[in-house]
Structure formats: C-alpha cells, structure tokens
C-alpha cells in the first residue's frame, strides 16, 4: 500500500518569550498508508495534536521533514495541493461552521476553490449523504445537535474529496449518541470509500476500531501496533497516563487473579464470549 503521509526525523520546537525553546516533537518517524485507519493516542501535552497539524502543513517542521503523497510540506507553493489531499476536523464543531445553512457551509470550501456550480451541487449532496445529513441540508447549523454539527463539518471536508481526513478529538464535546454517530461516519468513510483516517482521541473505545494505533509521549512515538497489541499492554498504557477499554481492564484483572482468560480482549463481543466460556 502506498505511503500517503510519512515523517522523517520530524522535529518541532517553538520559542517562548524569554524562555528557552520548548521541544514538542523529538524525532518522529511514522508513515500512514493509503486507506488506513490510524488512531493517535497520548496524554494532554504529549505532542499528538502538534503532530497532526504537520500532516497538512498547518505547522512546518523545525527539523526533518513531512511528506504528503511525496510532496514535502515545507514547499510553500504546494500548500494548497497538500490541504486538498489532507482535510482536518477539529474538536469544537461551533468553531468550524461558517454559513447559516447546512448546504452552504458544506459548499464554502468548494466555492473558494472555484469549482463549477453544477459540480458543487453534486459534491455537496454527495458529501451530505455520506455523513447521513442530507435531509438536514436546508437547516440552520445552530439548530443541530453537536454530533450533527460535527458531521456537517466532516461533510465540508469530504466535499473537497481529500485522500485523508485528520480528526483532532472530534468527539470530545459530544454526548454518547453524537459520539456514536461521528465514529460510525468515520468508520464508514474508511471502509466504504477508502478514505484514509488519522483519528486523535482520548477515547480508547474509539481507538479499538482503528487498523493501527500510534502512541505519542513527550514528543516521541513510544508504541505502535494493532489495537490488540497496544491494549494488551495494560500496565504500560496506564504508566503513560492512558487507559484501556473497560473490557480489556476487566480481563486483565481476572487474569491477574489467576483465572484462565486471555489478556488481549478488546471488544464487548470478545469479552462476553470469554466470560461465557469461563462460567459455563
């Protein structure tokens, strides 16, 4: 599979007034492949959002480089190409909506790109259908729930037909239903439309659905692997200030008590099956 985003010795620091430089990213070497769903985990201040902002040239490395589909993000004349390939969705849906009607909001970037009206119409409808918000196309965004607004924000991104969407804690402000809606939308885009996904999250039950997890700590990538490989290391995750899904923790504890259960259980289904077998 083709590498869509790769970082080579990515280093980022910034200068704070009157103080020495603050090192945020140390020496990051990762790659995200076309069609992959990657989750990025790390505690607050670990550098994971800073890393994500390098994926579409919002930030530029102070050392090393970032390649997006082979283009070096440090090339100023390629920024628009990069941003068209990599779209970003942020935490607060209210900060991302600019228009007063849903469909106009989704069309905003397309108008800026100078796309033909007929094509805009087609793309907007298509994007709204993909996030299951088509029936709300004439609604005012402020009348929508958080999860709906966030899906409109995602539609605005997919209307640009990016190859990859980077989502920085898109569910942090949502209620359980909104979280389910957004996660389902993200998973569907990945599975059915092969959109590459980089999801930054504090919710371990969202990361479970990724193909691969990257754990960032103090500006370094400290773990990378499938959700099963990552979450089975319960103690290490806790040391890093992170967590594991409740079902993983339960099986881990039971195993420590000497019960014959595996410690790489990550879904409700698996946990139910394991416990059923244990008790029957």
């Amino acid at each position, binding site marked *: 599979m083709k590498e869509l985003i790769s970082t080579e010795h990515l280093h980022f620091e910034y200068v704070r007034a009157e103080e020495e430089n603050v090192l945020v990213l140390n020496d990051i070497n990762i790659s995200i492949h076309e069609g992959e769903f990657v989750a990025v985990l790390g*505690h607050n*201040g670990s550098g994971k959002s800073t890393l994500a902002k390098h994926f579409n040239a919002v930030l530029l490395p102070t050392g090393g480089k970032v390649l997006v589909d082979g283009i070096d993000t440090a090339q100023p004349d390629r920024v628009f190409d990069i941003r068209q390939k990599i779209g970003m969705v942020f935490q607060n849906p209210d900060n991302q909506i600019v228009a007063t009607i849903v469909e106009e909001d989704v069309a905003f970037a397309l108008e800026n790109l100078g796309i033909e009206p007929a094509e805009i119409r087609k793309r907007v409808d298509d994007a709204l259908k993909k996030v299951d918000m088509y029936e709300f196309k004439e609604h005012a965004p402020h009348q929508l729930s958080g999860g709906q607004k966030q899906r409109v924000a995602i539609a605005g991104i997919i209307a640009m037909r990016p190859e990859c969407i980077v989502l920085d804690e898109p569910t942090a402000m949502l209620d359980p239903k909104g979280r389910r809606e957004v996660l389902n939308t993200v998973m569907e885009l990945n599975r059915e439309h092969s959109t590459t996904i980089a999801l930054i999250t504090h919710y371990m039950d969202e990361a479970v659905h990724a193909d691969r997890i990257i754990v960032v700590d103090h500006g370094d990538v400290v773990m990378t692997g499938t959700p099963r490989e990552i979450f089975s290391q319960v103690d290490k995750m806790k040391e890093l*200030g*992170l*967590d594991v899904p*409740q*079902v993983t923790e339960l099986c881990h*504890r039971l195993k420590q*008590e000497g019960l014959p259960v595996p410690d790489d259980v990550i879904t409700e289904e698996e946990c*139910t099956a394991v416990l059923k077998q244990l008790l029957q």
Partner: protein
Amino acid sequence: MAIIKTEHLSHVYSEGTPFEKVAVGDVSLEIEQGAFVGVIGHTGSGKSTLIQHFNGLLKPTSGKIMVDGKDIWAEENKKNIRNVRFQVGLVFQYPEYQLFEETVYKDIAFGPGNMGLSEEEIHTRVSEAMEFVGLKEKYAQKSPFDLSGGQKRRVAIAGVIAMRPKVLILDEPTAGLDPKGRDKILGQIREYHQQTQSTILLVSHSMEDIAKYAGKVLVMNHAGVFDYDTVERVFSRSAELTRMGLSVPQVSRVFERLSSEGLSVSQNVYTVEQAQREILRLYTQKKEGFHA
C-alpha cells in the same frame, strides 16, 4: 433535607415569539444535602438550562426554585440573589477560558473577595482550595496563562471551591482531558465531597465516570426529568437510556449480554471493580460446585 428543590419549574426561551422553545418543562425535584449526583442527558435535553437555575443565573419563567429552603426569587430574597451564587458554585464547561487575573492567587481570590471576606480569610481559602485541586503553592504567584490546560482548569475549579459553596456544580469538568487527568480531577472532587460533606452535581457524558463517582443520577430528557434515582436503578434502564441517546458503561453492556445468553449474573454491575468481584464470585461458585 433538600438543599435544592424545584416546584413545577419551567423555562421557556423567547416566549410568545415564533422561536418559542421550552428548555425545561415542569420540573419538580429535590436534591438532598450531601448527595453526589451525576447529571446526564443528550445535548439539548435541558440539563444546562436547569442547572443554571440552581444558582440563580436564570430565572424560571414559571415555577419555583428553593435553595436551602429559601425561594430565591421571592420578593424578599430577590435582592440577595448574589448570595445564592456564593452558596451554589457553578463551574462551567471549559472554565479555563474564564481565567483573567494576573496571578493564580488573585484569580482564585476573586470570588472570596466579592464575598467581602477579610484578607486573612481569603488567604486561608485560597490555600485550602489550591490544596483540594492539587495545585502546589509555587504556582500561586504565576500567571494562570503560563499553565497547562489541565492546570488552568484546576485553577478555575479552585476559584469556585474557595467560596466554600454548599453545592458545587461542575459542567463536564473533564471534557478534553486525557484519562489520567480525568481520573485525577474526579478523584479530587470525590475527596472534596467526602471532606466537606457538600452537595456535588457532576454533569458528564461519560457513563463510566458517573458510575464510578456518583451516588445518584439525574437523567434529563426532552426538557423534563426522566429519572432521578440511585446509579443502580437508573442504569438498569439501559434500553431506555440508549434510545434517548445515552448509554450505560461498557461492562454493564457485557453483563446484559451474558444475561441474555442465559447466564445468571448480577445486573447491578456498572464498574470494572464490580464486574471483577461478580465474575470471581461466580467462578469460585462454579469450581466449588464441581468439587461438591
């Protein structure tokens, strides 16, 4: 005794216009002194509007709200509405954006200062509040804007705690925090609750956190109270909660599945600890059964 009591409280926005919207409709509720209440409800269920009545930020469009036995909007109490805000402290969502003073100390001292307390008393309260939220003394003279997001949030919570409110309401205090930061803040709130015997209302979208920390749960739905009961009784209505856009903790869902597959497991499991105990109990029982 009820510290907060509402009688047929309603709040209608833009009443009499085409935009009229009932945010809270006919809520009669009694919250006991000393309770730790988790408040849940989907976006737009009316929970934020309701809690803003508890400290007099919003005035009911009809009905009454009593704090510590006093009708706060009664003619004779109306002019002292400010005192209600000292009694019922409200920590908003993302409170770190509300910091404004030059130093952490001054920011936390702002509330007690408004109460007209002496410098000495203010000092005691600031130190006490900083200790509750786990902020070391060395931060007192720092600018709050030089702190990390998690620390700023602690300063904001300390600013409310420093007024020693009888009721502390926190609107999603852990939104956007990592798991460790989340456990730390909630642990400190629990500690504060136990030490001060004050009443806590914790608004959260995390059913896991509600199950772990709260004793009772207030469920808001469609501008009304769907339920106000113990954690056990509320979470036993799993199907209804899911239908209204909420959920139950992940371990509870596993136990529901086990039960529907014919195993006789307890349905009162809401935390990992409870699940662990229950499985161990059943496993031991099964093994002993074999020996018998």
